[in-house]
């Protein structure tokens, strides 16, 4: 009855065959009075029709239905119309929106939005999660104008080197303008995830007041808020499921500590995840225990170090269904001789049959470690990175962790401890070895020996972060061959420009082997003594690398050039203390728009070179950042450069020590 529209409007040769689209939701099928045969075909033919019309703008007349149709039984799904007759092109977009609902990956959505204006609009109405990797790349207003129905927003702020004190306080990345814009635009917003942003208590209050359906708040490496803000969230977000605070810097209210845990609803809550190990102030334990008792959906709980093992036991009794548990201090507050026995604590761990992820151990009394043995076999993730354990203390624990996939540990366990890990954890995917003493001249406890062991025992390794004092090319090469699945390789030889421990050679060959042999590598951090040769390797072979971190490396601008020219997927480049000049910077001109950002500090850049870049690239924001303590006007030398592509232009919230070129 209805003519398939594609045949009426388009020429044959251009018509693509109907793609096997996803199932059409029932709500879009026509009512029985209309031809039922129309139900599957409109979508598929519409899709192909859209393809044909890719070059057209939306004015071309696609007739989803012929004008003859009564249209009475038709109920468009997504627009507000309840049985209203929708004009044909809107119907088309409705159908498209239903289809696009199924697209969740941002990359797919970005691609779909580029097809034509109609797809762009449909995609913009159906995108549920907005990911913005640089909060200054686009203005809140623009985001709000484009996307009509967001439910979740993910925002990242400061450059990563801010974590290492390289970005002065007050640089920016305030969430306030975003919350102010999102509030009125998305009353149904459910989830906000922020990374490296400054979030004030007022911002948190605004979130709590703006979004009645709010469910998830995740703050990672953020700062600016205190327990006051947490109290407002707890109190007002009645449907809160997730409150994850990860390594934030939480201000304290000097005069009064707010008992935010008591502010959660008194009835049963919908809490699934409560992570607050970084909120370092004491809290009301009784309130937490009661909260846990009335949160039947709770699966993840990570407490701060003000929790003793006795208190842990009480918590575990209330929440035997936990899957992720952060154990606080893991010691007893009682006098020696008193306090919980290891056996009693072990029964708690035995009773928590769902535990897969353990962390905490912030001040661990090693005598209590055996209490976790009953849980070890089921563990997939174990974080000992705040526990200074020896190899002897680690071995009996790790021996039981046969299913471990993620392991974070301090280098106090030494090469010997790592050998024990390698001996048991054949399924290991992620390893992080942190230094107890993070200085260049400390005595290293782990070395190439430990790395060798890991590559022998853990062939499925995908991600490694390894701090050490000494390394050899040979160990790195061995890892490159035995762990071909590596996606993330971050090696930090803590002594600057330190060569191969045995041969004295630069570490070029080791990192070269990594980029050559690990074909899935997307993230690389280099260290040790490195010449331009290493970067030639990286440029030649690192075709999938998205993030590259460079420190104290390279001899000339060629290094930068190799990277810019070779790493075609490069998105984030962070460089410090390397001898690169304006020439190296300018070799990247053609590539900056493909990248999210470039950070360079303590290299050999001058204002002239940075201004050159700013002038030639209109959609780049070029920031030159001075330290507070830079009294002398060495005006031409640029100590810190941060440049990023942006649709928003230079920001208006920059502090005085930031110069926008």
């Amino acid at each position, binding site marked *: 009855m209805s003519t398939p529209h594609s045949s009426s409007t388009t020429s044959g040769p251009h018509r693509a065959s109907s793609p096997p689209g996803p199932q059409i939701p029932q709500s879009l099928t026509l009512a029985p009075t209309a031809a039922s045969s129309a139900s599957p075909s409109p979508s598929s033919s519409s899709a192909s029709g859209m393809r044909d019309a890719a070059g057209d703008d939306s004015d071309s007349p696609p007739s989803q239905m012929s004008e003859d149709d009564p249209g009475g039984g038709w109920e468009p799904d997504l627009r507000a119309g309840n049985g209203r007759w929708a004009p044909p092109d809107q119907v088309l977009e409705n159908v498209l929106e239903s289809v696009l609902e199924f697209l969740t990956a941002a990359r797919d959505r970005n691609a779909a939005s580029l097809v034509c204006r109609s797809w762009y609009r449909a995609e913009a109405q159906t995108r549920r999660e907005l990911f913005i990797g640089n909060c200054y790349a686009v203005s809140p207003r623009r985001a709000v104008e484009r996307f009509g129905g967001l439910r979740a927003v993910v925002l990242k702020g400061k450059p990563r080197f801010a974590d290492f004190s390289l970005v002065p306080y007050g640089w920016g990345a305030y969430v306030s303008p975003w919350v102010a814009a999102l509030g009125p635009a998305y009353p149904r917003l459910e989830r906000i995830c922020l990374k490296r942003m400054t979030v004030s208590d007022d911002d948190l209050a605004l979130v709590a007041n703006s979004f009645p359906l709010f469910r998830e708040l995740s703050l990672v490496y953020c700062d600016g808020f205190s327990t006051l803000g947490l109290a407002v969230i707890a109190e007002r977000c009645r449907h809160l499921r997730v409150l994850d605070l990860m390594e934030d810097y939480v201000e304290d209210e000097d005069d009064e500590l707010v008992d935010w845990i008591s502010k959660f609803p008194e009835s049963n809550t919908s809490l699934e995840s409560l992570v607050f190990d970084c909120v370092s102030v*004491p809290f009301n334990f009784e309130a937490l225990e009661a909260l846990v008792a009335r949160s039947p959906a709770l699966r993840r709980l990570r407490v701060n170090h003000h929790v003793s093992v006795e208190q842990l036991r009480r918590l575990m009794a209330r929440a035997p269904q936990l899957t992720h548990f952060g154990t606080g201090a893991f010691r007893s507050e009682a006098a020696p001789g008193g306090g919980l026995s290891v056996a009693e604590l072990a029964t708690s761990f035995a009773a928590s049959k769902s535990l897969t992820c353990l962390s905490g151990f912030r001040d661990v009394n090693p005598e209590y470690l055996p209490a976790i043995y009953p849980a070890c076999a089921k563990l997939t993730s174990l974080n000992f990175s705040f526990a200074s354990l020896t190899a002897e203390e680690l071995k009996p624990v790790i021996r039981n962790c046969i299913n471990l996939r993620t392991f974070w540990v301090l280098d*106090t366990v030494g090469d010997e401890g790592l050998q024990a890990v390698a001996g048991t954890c054949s399924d290991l995917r992620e390893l992080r070895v942190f230094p107890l003493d993070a200085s260049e001249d400390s005595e290293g406890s782990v070395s190439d020996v430990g790395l060798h062991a890991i590559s022998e025992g853990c062939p499925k390794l995908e991600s490694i972060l390894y701090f050490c004092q*000494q390394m050899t090319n040979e160990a790195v090469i061995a890892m490159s061959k035995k762990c071909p699945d590596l996606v993330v390789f971050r090696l930090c030889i803590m002594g600057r420009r330190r060569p191969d421990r045995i041969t004295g050679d630069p570490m070029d060959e080791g990192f070269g082997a990594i980029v050559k042999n690990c074909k899935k590598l997307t993230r690389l951090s280099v260290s040790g003594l490195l010449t331009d040769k290493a970067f030639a390797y990286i440029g030649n072979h690192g075709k999938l690398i998205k993030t590259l971190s460079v420190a104290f490396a390279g001899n000339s601008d060629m290094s930068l050039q190799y990277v810019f020219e070779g790493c075609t997927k490069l998105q984030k480049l962070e460089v410090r203390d390397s001898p690169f000049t304006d020439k190296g910077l300018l070799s990247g001109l053609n590539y900056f728009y493909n990248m999210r950002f470039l950070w360079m500090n303590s290299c050999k850049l001058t204002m002239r070179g940075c201004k050159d870049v700013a002038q030639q690239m209109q959609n780049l924001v070029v920031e030159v950042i001075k330290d507070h*303590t830079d009294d002398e006007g060495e005006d031409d030398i640029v100590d810190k450069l941060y440049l990023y592509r942006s649709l928003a232009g230079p920001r208006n919230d920059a502090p005085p020590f930031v110069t926008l070129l």
Partner: protein
Amino acid sequence: MAGADVDVGTELRLGLPGGGAEAAKAAKRGFEDTIDLKLKLPTAGMEEAAAVKPEPAAEKAKRPAEAPDADAEKPPAPKAQAVGWPPVRSYRRNVMTVQSVKSKKEEEPEKQQSAVTAGSNSSAFVKVSMDGAPYLRKVDLKMYDSYKDLSIALKKMFSTFATTGNNMNEGKLVDPVSGADVVTTYEDKDGDWMLVGDVPWEMFVESCKRLRIMKSSEAIGLAPRAKDKCKNKS
């Protein structure tokens, strides 16, 4: 006006690492979090067997791992520490600092002053600001037993300085930019700014609300005698 009690370590005085120009340049980069005092943990596993002996292939000389007091006698480090290197987040460094200090305390139980630890599980976090630093820090005063312990921890936090002089209390803290001496002051419950070190430690912990490390040139009226003391001791 300021207490002239010489017995208790008053101002915390710590000096720049050696090496003029390079150190000054490094200091201009801002303040760093690197723990440049090495603490030997008394754990069995951290032994020479596990550690690999550093080879002289390293281009820079390595400082021996010593207690901070002994550092005072050694020649200054050949290079200044770099800000934010190694790249360990301050969140992690802070926790490690606390743990290291605590385990040191456990090693020397006889030296512990039980008055401090008795019956007190709560913490006493106070903000610490240093003039010219880009951000503030927090310390828990209950973690420490004495002004000396506190000064060790503060040195770690604002660690572009090292001790000179004969002992901890006489080390000079020098503002990295201007080279001036600094003094450590605190705000007490009444809101007055006082010189650190005048009162017994326990009393100080009870009354201290925040700490400020300021240039001694600004410490007028607060610690004129502190400056004189500096000159007397040096």
